[in-house]
């Protein structure tokens, strides 16, 4: 040991507890950036219940299984039936399993934020090197990455399955990469929205209910409006249906994905034309910026 003990209790018998005294810490202090990265890793793992109690692993792992299972079944069917194409495009998958990421962010965003609020742990973070913005960035990044892992894993399964089924390599690689871009878009938007809602209430249950309501009700609302507009059958109706996609996070991210990758939307109608695509992208970026801004503002007041 390189440091000498400052105090030592003399040993006189076999059953003496040695007090080696206080040893000052002379090692390195890695500062703010390291603390932020540590908080990010800790939170991202926490979203899956890793390094936490067994019971907190149950829900995220069930959801993870739920999002991967359909992909595995599809791959199995494609390989066994020797199909010569996938039954749907990779980019459609997120909307196909839409409830699963919704439940995931609803359950885990409050887990990431509400606990620190409810048990007033927040001042302990802010009295350390990291700043309020660092805290927000670490949590935002953690929620985004956790959601991305949830969305990207089944896509990887589908892609590997497509290759095993000896489907055309180039076409599917391009489609797969496009779907990953889409997964990033969905992850950013879902993480931002769910964290903003979770940051408002220290009560976890309320946060969960609020997030699931906002995500699913807005999705139902937007899809219904799109469906009604589309049913009118004329061009104006079709355009209106496209714009209605702006009304929910899922249809917004789906529209951005379709416009960026040049694929069909998974939902009813995509953004109308190039102008529509640009507007969708701007609204998307604006929404994420707004979520970040609101979070920073929320934590500035604490």
């Amino acid at each position, binding site marked *: 040991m390189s440091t000498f003990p*400052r*105090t030592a209790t003399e040993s006189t018998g076999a059953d003496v507890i040695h007090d080696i*005294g*206080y*040893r*000052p*810490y002379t*090692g*390195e*202090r*890695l*500062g*703010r950036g*390291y*603390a932020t990265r*540590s*908080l990010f890793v*800790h939170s991202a793992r926490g979203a899956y219940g890793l*390094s*936490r*109690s067994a019971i907190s692993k149950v829900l995220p792992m069930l959801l993870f299984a739920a999002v991967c299972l359909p992909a595995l079944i599809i791959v199995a069917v494609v390989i066994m039936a020797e199909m010569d194409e996938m039954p749907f495009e990779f980019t459609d998958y997120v909307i196909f399993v839409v409830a699963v990421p919704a439940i995931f962010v609803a359950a885990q965003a409050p887990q990431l934020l509400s*606990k*620190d609020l409810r*048990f*007033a*742990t927040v*001042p*302990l*973070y*802010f*009295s*350390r*090197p*990291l*700043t309020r913005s660092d805290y927000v960035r670490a949590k935002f990044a953690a929620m985004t990455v956790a959601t991305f892992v949830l969305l990207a894993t089944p896509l990887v399964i589908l892609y590997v399955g497509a290759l095993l089924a000896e489907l055309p390599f180039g076409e599917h690689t391009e489609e797969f990469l496009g779907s990953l871009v889409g997964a990033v878009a969905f992850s950013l938007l879902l993480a931002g929205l769910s964290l903003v809602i979770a940051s408002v209430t220290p009560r976890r249950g309320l946060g969960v209910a609020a997030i699931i309501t906002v995500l699913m009700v807005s999705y139902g609302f937007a899809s219904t409006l799109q469906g009604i507009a589309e049913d009118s059958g004329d061009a104006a109706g079709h355009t209106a249906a496209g714009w209605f996609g702006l009304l929910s996070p899922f249809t917004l991210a789906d529209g951005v994905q379709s416009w960026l990758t040049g694929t069909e939307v998974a939902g009813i109608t995509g953004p109308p034309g190039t102008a529509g695509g640009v507007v969708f992208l701007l609204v998307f970026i604006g929404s994420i910026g707004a979520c970040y801004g609101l979070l920073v503002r929320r934590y500035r007041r604490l």
Partner: protein
Amino acid sequence: MPLLVSRVCSVSVISTSALTKQYPRVTALDQLTVDVEPGVVGLVGANGAGKSTLIKILLGLADATSGSAQMLGKNVVTEGSDLRERVGYMPEHDCLPPDLSATEFVVHMARMSGLPASAARERTADTLRHVGLYEERYRPIGGYSTGMKQRVKLAQALVHDPAIVLLDEPTNGLDPIGRDEMLALIRRIHTEFGISVLVTSHLLGELERICDHVVVIDGGRLLRSSATDEFTRVTRLLAVEVIEPLDREVDAVAALVEAGLRVTIEGRVLMVEIIDGDLDGAVDVVRDTVVAHGLGLSRMEQGRHRMTEIFSDEASS
């Protein structure tokens, strides 16, 4: 006798200049200028005196309306992030997640202070032992007693071996034994660990026992800042309760004053202040005088100044 290695230089560890914090309806700090030297420094004031506000400004948890503050020679606003690497904070309120064990929580907080993972684990084990948490450190915090929770709060403030710790009402909610243990521990933080301490309390008597220096604030203003022995000199008071009759009591008071003691009558209690000379001598004088005047002595104890007395004394002087 533990060898004290002071790792802080002898200049002020905390220094504020005309520090003011104005909330919409109250002024929490009013032009507070104070210097705090290394050692154990007590910050005393009634509830709402501005103690917590001062600590929050020093930690960057709140912004000052005007004035400036330095800790360890660094500006708390412009160099806050660097500074907080070397500062520990134990808040007054509960701040512990009940589902984590003390070890898990303190390791996490050590990393948040910038310690590498392996050092964080090692320091956590050491620190929890120093604050007196042993086997229970692996159990969830939710099942801890108040005393154990206070120890965890203290451990997370010490785990990164700061140069100074700010302890906000660390004895709150503790029973008398727990209180004594916590006070002894706070004293050790300086004498054995070599870490400067700023500790707040609304009980002066408590801080007298462990502090080198006491700062009294009231209504956000500095009331007094002096070494602890100056306070204890003032608190050399004897509360003497005698059994009437009153006329003899008056004679006895006169005799005591003649013997060089200052006496004030508070109801049935004579407050005898020892101006000079030692305590034992004064106790003898009081006893002899009481007996000589044929009074029954029903109680005599060392009086202890409370905050209110300091405030009224300071206000009237």
